[in-house]
């Protein structure tokens, strides 16, 4: 048994990382999604639109730029799944959830910032995504992604 472990240390490390990635990764993702859903329902009354003229100009009291960003990385297990998926093609579900989480988190943070500034709505909303980290320049390797959400927070005049 010990001989096997020593002779195949590379394989063992790989197996351990896979299991660790799977367990910790899926737990973290579940927790993150639960928190995203909770905060989304809390802030559902804050409208975010990507058009420029969403309110009457004369009602506007104050407007300012708000941003929110999040860097999310994928776990070892899912990265391996994605590499396998690359052989056959098709939907890469493990990356879909990564991108989705980063974007929703970024939007939530932007909304939080807007709420802090007592804004009533966010207009001209934009969303940007970029790959960062060591592997960003290597082809076919997405280590982690950054989502940036920004827009103009508008405070309306109270009648």
């Amino acid at each position, binding site marked *: 048994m010990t001989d096997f472990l020593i002779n195949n240390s590379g394989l063992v490390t790989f197996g351990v990382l896979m299991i660790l990635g799977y367990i910790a990764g899926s737990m973290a*993702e579940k927790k993150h999604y639960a928190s995203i859903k909770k905060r989304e329902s809390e802030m559902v009354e804050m409208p975010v639109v990507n058009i420029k003229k969403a309110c009457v100009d004369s009602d506007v009291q104050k*407007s300012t*730029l708000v941003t929110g960003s999040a*860097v999310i990385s994928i776990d*070892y297990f899912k990265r391996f799944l994605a590499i396998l998926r690359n052989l056959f093609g098709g939907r890469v579900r493990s990356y879909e959830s990564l991108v989705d989480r980063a974007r929703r988190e970024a939007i939530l943070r932007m909304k939080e910032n807007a709420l802090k500034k007592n804004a009533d709505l966010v207009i001209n909303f934009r969303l940007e995504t*970029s790959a*960062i980290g060591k592997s*960003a*320049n290597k082809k076919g390797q997405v280590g982690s992604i950054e989502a*940036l959400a920004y827009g103009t927070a508008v405070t309306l005049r109270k009648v």
Partner: protein
Amino acid sequence: MLITNVENVPGKVIVEHFGIVQGSTVRAKNVGRDIMASLKNLIGGELKGYTELLNEARRESLDRMEEQAKTMGANAVVNVRFATSSVAQGASELFAYGTAVRLESE
């Protein structure tokens, strides 16, 4: 200084245009953060160090843009856009640009 990403500030009129202003900064993570991030890469999830770093860098590029607008005599920057790109391994550039204008209330 008023900064928005719409073309005209609601409730105000643009009386003067100064053209494009921009601010950018290239940031590299420190080794400690890099090691933490590569560990976190195994289990996935948010890389708080990187989020923080990018936020700082973005504020820096906004500040530089503001400074440039101020020297032109503008009191607002409208139509602001952000761009991120990784220049070299482990370093990324944060870039903000917009149009410097002078506003007056209607």
